[in-house]
């Protein structure tokens, strides 16, 4: 008995795939030269040290080879990447003065709603430039700085902090795309939470790619001082084009003594995107970093948020989910350096692969000689939705300290027919049943997200699950 196949190779992503004309937008020539990098820097009216850093990074970029250990990036043609597209608007604080087409884009992405619900500052990035930025009064009154990173560079007080921290967790020498980022970074967020200040609502930034062939190189720099507390949410969605697209952002998080930072993100890139993103956090004594990460979309992804536990009793927890569908090769995971006494880390990841998608989980736990008394536990659960998909787990552990406790467990499973039958016997269709089970599988991640983001993630899973019955 043959069942009707409802496989749809390319799901309807129309909700996320839309774009507007580029009239009035300035485009720089493709191809990377010191001249282009200098022009980017001059336009931004940057301090000399930043230009020097860009030029040095560019040199490193040209010198370094592509990574050879992960998914292939042969389809990435750097000549096609226009690294900088500047929208024809200046920075705005007032929603009414944002141009209509850009506003419409944001509205379809739910920005105003998110703003209303959380009453928080919203920095949204359109192409490479920050066009809409609204700082919630309460946050400002508490002394919290939340601004575009270029903007912050113009303030001597903040420039000093940025100069001290910028690309120190992710040096340009780290890998080829970190170097590229250093050379052409544009846009992003700067958040500074002073000592002892605890923000009880999340700060959010929603950005997206619009121009054809444009790369996105936003930089997020967050400093949470001693005893302070912050939840920062980054979410993004990109329209789909046939030209190879590149995302090489960088996120640097500095968590002070006894401070707490939760960094949540849902990445939903179009299926032709090369997502080569680098994220790192450093925690001082008793500081805590929590990563919540949902990776959807993109053609190829390399994403391994890393925690450097530099202070005694500092902690890291990572909760992540990756969904690899047809034509996707997502290499994701987490790195932790246990770099001081009594540090602790947990890594809990879920991966879903479908329609020939490849999902690889990579973890790296390093315990330095100073890490006595530290613990780490890594757990990876994979769900394969068919026989043609692939799921791998590659755990690495490098233990150089005495008295450390490190554990790893991995499971790979499929959706049981008995579960499908049970749900269907209650009137739920097969597709809904599968979606329900996959959403349940993803629940440990979505329950950590604010409601709107959790709903969006469930919707993304639903979209990805369409045509999953074969």
């Amino acid at each position: 008995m043959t069942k009707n196949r409802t496989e749809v190779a390319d799901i309807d992503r129309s909700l996320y795939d839309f774009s507007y004309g580029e009239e009035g937008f300035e485009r720089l020539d493709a191809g990377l030269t010191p001249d282009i990098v200098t022009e980017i820097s001059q336009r931004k009216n940057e301090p000399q040290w930043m230009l020097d850093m860009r030029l040095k990074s560019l040199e490193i970029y040209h010198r370094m080879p592509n990574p050879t250990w992960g998914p292939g990036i042969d389809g990435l043609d750097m000549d096609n990447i226009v690294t900088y597209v500047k929208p024809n608007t200046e920075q705005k604080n007032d929603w009414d003065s944002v141009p209509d087409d850009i506003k419409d884009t944001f509205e379809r992405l739910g920005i105003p709603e998110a703003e209303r619900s959380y009453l928080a500052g919203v920095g949204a990035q359109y192409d490479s430039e920050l066009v809409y930025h609204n700082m919630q009064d309460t946050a400002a009154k508490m002394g919290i700085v939340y601004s575009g990173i270029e903007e912050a560079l113009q303030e001597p007080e903040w420039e000093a902090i940025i100069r001290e921290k910028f690309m120190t967790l992710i040096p340009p020498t780290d890998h080829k795309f970190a170097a590229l980022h250093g050379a052409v970074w544009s846009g992003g967020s700067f958040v500074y939470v002073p000592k002892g200040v605890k923000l009880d609502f999340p700060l959010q930034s929603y950005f997206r790619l619009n121009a054809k062939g444009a790369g996105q190189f936003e930089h997020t720099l967050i400093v949470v001082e001693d005893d302070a507390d912050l939840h920062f949410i980054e979410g993004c969605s990109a329209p789909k084009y046939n030209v190879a697209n590149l995302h090489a952002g960088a996120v640097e998080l500095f968590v002070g003594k006894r401070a707490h930072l939760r960094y949540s993100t849902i990445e939903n890139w179009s299926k032709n995107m090369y997502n080569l993103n680098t994220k790192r956090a450093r925690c001082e004594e008793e500081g805590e970093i929590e990563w919540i990460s949902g990776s959807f979309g993109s053609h190829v992804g390399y994403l391994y948020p890393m925690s450097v536990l530099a202070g005694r009793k500092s902690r890291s927890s990572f909760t992540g989910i990756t969904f690899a569908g047809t034509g996707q090769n997502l290499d994701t995971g987490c790195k932790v350096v246990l770099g001081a006494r009594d540090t602790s880390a947990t890594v809990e990841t879920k991966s879903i692969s479908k329609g020939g998608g490849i999902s690889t989980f990579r973890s790296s736990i390093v315990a330095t000689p100073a890490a006595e008394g530290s613990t780490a536990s890594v757990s990876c659960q994979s769900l394969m939705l068919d026989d043609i998909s692939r799921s791998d787990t590659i755990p690495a552990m490098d233990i150089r300290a005495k008295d450390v406790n490190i554990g790893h467990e991995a499971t790979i499973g499929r959706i049981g027919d008995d579960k499908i039958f049970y749900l269907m016997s209650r009137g739920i269709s097969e597709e809904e049943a599968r979606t329900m089970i996959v959403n349940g599988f993803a629940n440990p991640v979505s329950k950590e997200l604010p409601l709107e983001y959790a709903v969006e993630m469930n919707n993304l899973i639903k979209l990805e699950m369409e045509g999953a019955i074969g």
Partner: protein
Amino acid sequence: MSTISPADTLLSVRGLTASVDEKTILHGVDLDVAAGETHVIMGPNGAGKSTMGHVIMGDPVYSVNKGSIFFDGQDITNLSCDKRSRAGLFLSFQAPVEIPGVPLSSFLRATLAGRESLEMKGKQFRRRVTELARELNMDTAYLNRELGVGFSGGEKKKVEMLQLLLLQPKLAILDETDSGLDVDALGVVSRGMDAYRKSTDGSLVIITHNTRILEHLEVDRVHVMVNGRIVREDDASLIPWIDANGFDTFEREAAAQLAAERETANDAAPARDAAADAVRAAAAGLGAGMVQSLRATLDASGAADASANASADAR
């Protein structure tokens, strides 16, 4: 053999033959259930009772090789199980599954979606579900827990009964094969069945091998299944008889029947006749007046036993 006229029949199973992994489990089963009736399918372990429930519900694990299933005037033999549910059929599971990460209340909500007469607004839904949970003596905290995860047997049973009451099916098949062993589960099921009968005029098909679950229940018809065949149909008086005597008689009878069929296939006439005689004798011993014919039945089944041995020797 049913006395029900086709017009009243809610569920009509005809000559149902079903298999799993090329092993035939059901051999030409007939079953007729009229609206509002309560039927019981009994039989020893491994007789195919649960399979019967699953095949009627449309479990894709089983292939239907022959026969048909009509429900509420519609041929549902090839209908997917979600559509059977929407047509008003329900199966409570012996071993309900666990779905990690899916709260019970979300699942219940999804079971109602798109059912015209049952779909309700959020507030109304919560009130209704809370009401039903209380009726079943179930801690409402379970509504927020992940479906089935960490639930005891009794709690899982409550969830099944809650769905029975929420979905108000026209016909519910309750697979209670093991419930008789668990006093708590037994109470839950009894309460659920009572509430179901009170709130709807729906039909019940109870699958069990233990008669305790049938106490205080008005049963219209009892079907005894052995080796994938209905070997006996009678009224409720069969229940106390089975309670006293178990299924041995039916199993011997079935063995004899099987032997007879094999002999027919082998065209071994004398042995077949002997076996057929024994079957007739066994059948004659069973009737409405169970008690007085008990002795005769035991004698007859002894004969069937002997003939089964004889036919085995003949081969």
